[in-house]
């Protein structure tokens, strides 16, 4: 969305396609499951963070309640499988549409609130869902969660080796990134930016800000839920603390923000930075130092917000476009 977007992106696209090619080919040669696991998590979080970014980055409506959408996705597909044997591939879409509906409701009620207030409202909403997951034991298994006793098969969206998960995750992440790219270079993107910059001016120019925001919310919540299903299918066990409790919201925001909120590649970059760090920390410190990685997350969040609010990719982009017009 910066000047000469198309031209800098063309320079970028070489890198992007190369990276994509590497991502597609590499996993075939990696035998160490540890690394494959890392990739899978990066892709999953990249997708989730990208989905969050659609609402909080492009539309500028900061949400602290996306944990709910992730959880709705995870629980919906899991429950549909456990109770009805429905293939998670379809359950995924069911979860997505449910999350989208809930998201639209939240949007309709809360969108007129100013940003802090909106964040607060989404926080409350996320908490409600979280509490529901914990207390509605008959449905969700409460704190014990739900296990997926799953036979590996395509129908079951379960596989013996990690490799299929890597590619599905890659497809998911690439898909979300593609959606973000499309948004950025479409009418919707322009309208979202206009709304984010100055709502009054946008409306005076004919932008139906209400509809535009709801579209962003719909996309954002739908894709978050899809990520949730993917997680459920990969880990084959879900419980409130892994798919719906609040720290999830902080984490997804952190990844997107550090990478670059409101940019196409920021969320993936954020995930690619933090997942290895988290895995490494867990490896060194084990579970004895509980919460240490959350402290680090919190500190990084604070530092980034104070000194580099555009995130890493945002900063790169700024520097490029400063040079941009001279190049063109």
């Amino acid at each position, binding site marked *: *969305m*910066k*000047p*000469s977007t198309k031209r800098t992106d063309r320079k970028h696209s070489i890198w992007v396609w190369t990276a994509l090619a590497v991502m597609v080919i590499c996993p075939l040669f990696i035998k160490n499951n540890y690394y494959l696991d890392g990739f899978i998590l990066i892709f999953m979080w990249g997708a989730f963070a990208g989905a969050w970014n659609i609402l909080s980055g492009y539309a500028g409506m900061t949400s602290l309640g996306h944990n709910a959408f992730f959880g709705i996705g995870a629980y919906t597909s899991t429950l549909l499988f456990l109770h009805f044997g429905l293939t998670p591939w379809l359950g995924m879409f069911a979860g997505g549409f449910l999350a989208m509906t809930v998201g639209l409701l939240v949007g309709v009620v809360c969108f007129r609130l100013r940003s802090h207030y909106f964040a607060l409202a989404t926080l409350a909403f996320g908490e409600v869902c979280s509490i529901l997951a914990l207390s509605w034991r008959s449905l969700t298994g409460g704190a014990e969660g739900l296990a997926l006793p799953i036979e590996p098969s395509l129908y079951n969206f379960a596989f013996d080796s990690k490799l299929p998960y890597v590619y599905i995750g890659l497809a998911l992440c690439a898909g979300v990134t593609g959606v973000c790219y499309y948004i950025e*270079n*479409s*009418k919707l993107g*322009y*309208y979202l*930016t*206009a709304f984010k*910059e*100055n709502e*009054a*001016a*946008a*409306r*005076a*120019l*004919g*932008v*139906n*800000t209400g509809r535009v925001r709801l579209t962003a919310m719909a996309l954002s919540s739908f894709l978050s839920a899809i990520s949730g299903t993917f997680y459920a299918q990969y880990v084959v066990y879900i419980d409130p603390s892994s798919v719906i409790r609040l720290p999830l919201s902080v984490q997804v925001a952190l990844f997107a923000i550090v990478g670059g909120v409101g940019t196409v590649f920021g969320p993936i970059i954020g995930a690619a930075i933090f997942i290895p760090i988290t895995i490494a920390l867990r490896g060194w410190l084990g579970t004895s130092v509980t919460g240490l990685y959350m402290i680090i997350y919190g500190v990084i969040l604070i530092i980034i917000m104070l000194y580099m609010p555009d995130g890493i990719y945002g900063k790169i982009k700024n520097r490029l476009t400063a040079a*941009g*017009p001279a190049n*063109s």
Partner: protein
Amino acid sequence: MLQVRDISKSFGGNVVLSDVSFDINSGDVVGLIGPNGAGKTTLFNILSGVYRSKTGRIKFNGQSLDRLKPEQICKRGLCRTFQITKPFGNISVTQNVMVGALIRAGSLKKAEQKALEILEFVGLYDKRDTLGRSLTIADRKRLEIARGLATQPRLLLLDEVMAGLNPQELSEVKRLIEDIRHSGITLFIIEHIMGVMMSLSDRIIVLDYGKMLCEGSPDSISCDPDVIKAYLGEEYLAATS
């Protein structure tokens, strides 16, 4: 083209507009003047759908504008600029104008073309890649006009686009307004710069404390004792009559 009848507006106990009625015909350039606090911008806000008037009606090209939202009114062909400019700071001038163009243009490409045409027309083509927040006041005002033009309005409401400009910038804007008029757009202009208003407008509406003081050609207005009293005070009137 525009029929306004009995528009009143209060905020709390404060009456800002009362019983304002007037017509604007296609092709006119109508000026709106009045001392500070007279209710001019509020009137614009009501016309463009930002505020609602509980009384009265507004008809634009035969259709009622009552209870329409700002974006709907813009789509109908009534567009307004803001007195305190509201550029989209983090995107380029071209992209700013594209936002306006997109309600009529089918694709981004067409919108960009239209935007560039308009930038040429208003004289901002050289600054087309500048970020919105880097513009000077004069350019911001011009951007407001450009964005408004991009929506292809039939009636354009300009809110003090000449405030704070030096004489050269002023004459450029004056020329721009004449060009806009010649392109077939009807104009309704709020302004304080009397000299320009007198020469540009076909008709002038004078507002004072929310009431219409008088309405007529520039010459008849300037001699109207009520107008003189409103602007310059009772003593001046007494002294000069």
